[in-house]
């Protein structure tokens, strides 16, 4: 187990290092970052000044080294647009986005677990097909279009929920539904497939033969086993939800990391964009690491591979 963990940890560190290089190099996609920051039509003197201020005149490897050293010492740089330290700026928004992702994940599970279980029990019936339809629509509907429909219904027609902002729990309802519905189909398919497999297992037949009520068999014996792979998927999906929050937060002007990312990208605020890319990647790496270790702990067969 310890060998597996250390191997997995080593990989995670290596991936994080590679991601940090890519996140830093993103800046150079524009050709000359000094020119991009100064804007089109800037005077040569201004461009030179920007180049000197941000250290673009140094060799790229030195710049990257300095950036990483500063990151490690806790200095995440200064935002060009907001004129504040990136660290406090990002961590104040991270809470909002984490909340959104967790609510979305909760919503996804709340609809996908019952639907997946029902679909498996009544497999190949019209109920199964109805549940499949819910999943298919969720996969086909662009999430920003779904968000706009929700706004029309809940905010304009019924006047139940606020359109934009992030002050109260009501502000999180529509973003969480939009994001969660997008994530739900994957869970539904996994639970349905898992339940169908488990329901055919011998111990389920034994439980039924013992005369246990269907409810007990389904929820206590079958679901418990079918839910194991869902835990692994949940960790991965949580990472996707954090990344996907950029579109949703922008629509609802929810003041989280995604909205900040959008603002920083449109304002060419590189220090902020770089740190957000790196932060979201590191969160994803940590989540998959945690889920892999949890899986290996639950299922000894994985440790050997």
């Amino acid at each position: 187990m310890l060998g597996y963990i250390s191997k997995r940890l080593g990989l995670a560190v290596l991936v994080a290092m590679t991601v940090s290089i890519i996140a830093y190099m993103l800046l150079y996609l524009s050709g000359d970052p000094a020119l991009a920051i100064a804007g089109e039509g800037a005077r040569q003197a201004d461009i030179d000044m920007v180049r000197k201020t941000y250290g673009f005149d140094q060799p790229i490897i030195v710049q990257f080294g300095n950036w990483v050293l500063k990151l490690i010492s806790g200095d995440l740089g200064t935002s060009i647009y907001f004129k504040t330290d990136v660290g406090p700026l990002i961590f104040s928004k991270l809470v909002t986005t984490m909340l959104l992702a967790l609510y979305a994940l909760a919503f996804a599970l709340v609809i996908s677990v019952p639907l997946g279980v029902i679909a498996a029990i009544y497999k190949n019936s019209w109920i199964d097909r109805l549940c499949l339809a819910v999943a298919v629509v969720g996969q086909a509907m662009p999430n920003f279009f779904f968000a706009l429909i929700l706004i029309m219904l809940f905010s304009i027609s019924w006047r139940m929920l606020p359109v934009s902002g992030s002050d109260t729990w009501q502000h999180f309802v529509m973003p969480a539904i939009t994001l969660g519905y997008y994530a739900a189909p994957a869970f539904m398919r996994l639970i349905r497939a898992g339940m169908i497999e488990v329901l055919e297992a011998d111990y389920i037949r034994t439980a039924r033969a013992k005369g246990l009520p269907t409810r007990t068999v389904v929820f206590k014996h079958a679901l418990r086993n079918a839910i194991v792979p869902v835990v692994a998927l949940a960790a991965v999906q949580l990472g996707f939800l954090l990344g996907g929050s950029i579109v949703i937060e922008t629509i609802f002007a929810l003041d989280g990391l995604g909205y900040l990312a959008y603002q920083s990208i449109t304002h060419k605020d590189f220090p902020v964009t770089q740190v957000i890319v790196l932060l979201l990647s590191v969160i994803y790496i940590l989540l998959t690491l945690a889920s892999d270790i949890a899986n290996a702990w639950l299922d000894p067969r994985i440790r050997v591979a």
Partner: protein
Amino acid sequence: MLNNKALVFGCGLLIFIVACALLAPWISPHDPYFQDLTNRTVPPFWYEKGSWLHPLGTDQLGRDYLSRLIYGARISLLIGISVAIISGLIGTTMGMLAGYFGGRIDMAVSFLVTTRLSMPVILVALATVALVGSSLWIVIMVLGLLKWDRFAVVMRSATQQVRSMEYVSAAQSAGASTLRIMLTEVLPNVMPHLIVIATLEAASAILLEAALSFLGLGVQPPLPSWGLMISEAKSYMFFSFWLIAIPGTALAVLIFSINLAGDGLHQALTPGERA
């Protein structure tokens, strides 16, 4: 039988959309770029104020919405197909190399896939497009260079399975070159998986382009990208929701038909396996 129904229905719908896109210049009632400022936001025909002159109405600049919708299908399909080809080439090459040779190459490819997966696609795509500049071809290149991960993962495991087959050993002992074995023995046998992933990735690329264009960092006006049409109509949505509902529904129907065709193909091409 039911699976075939999915395939037939999905492909039928898809062929209809492709036909509309190909025949756009002949079936569009108007020029999609012609602005008629005296006829702005005319509603579709099923509204009282609508008319058959503009069956789906006109947008905020008086351009015929049906014509824009038909031309928009061209953009979505172009994006889906091009991105699937670019990312498919990258991912398939990586996956087949990893699956065939194993060892160090496999480790390197797995590392690249893990790294790619840890970076959020939409964020990196947005940042890249914002820096490089946004145009249709840049969006295609950026998405193509970002979305090869699933191709690599699936092609790797498919190649691993095929590699241990007897006909591969036979070709090896007959002295065929590695390249020849890859192209004539392995590739045809992993093709079913490749086609299925390509359809799913095309659908996902279309959705990503729509999201990028919706955020203003994708295809640029006046091109009629469906995502861009939704974005442009956003400020009119409280009064004319159909301006959003029409391109939104078109996107959903296109994605639905591709996914359905992909599922159908999956069941038809790889019998005995489950999604």
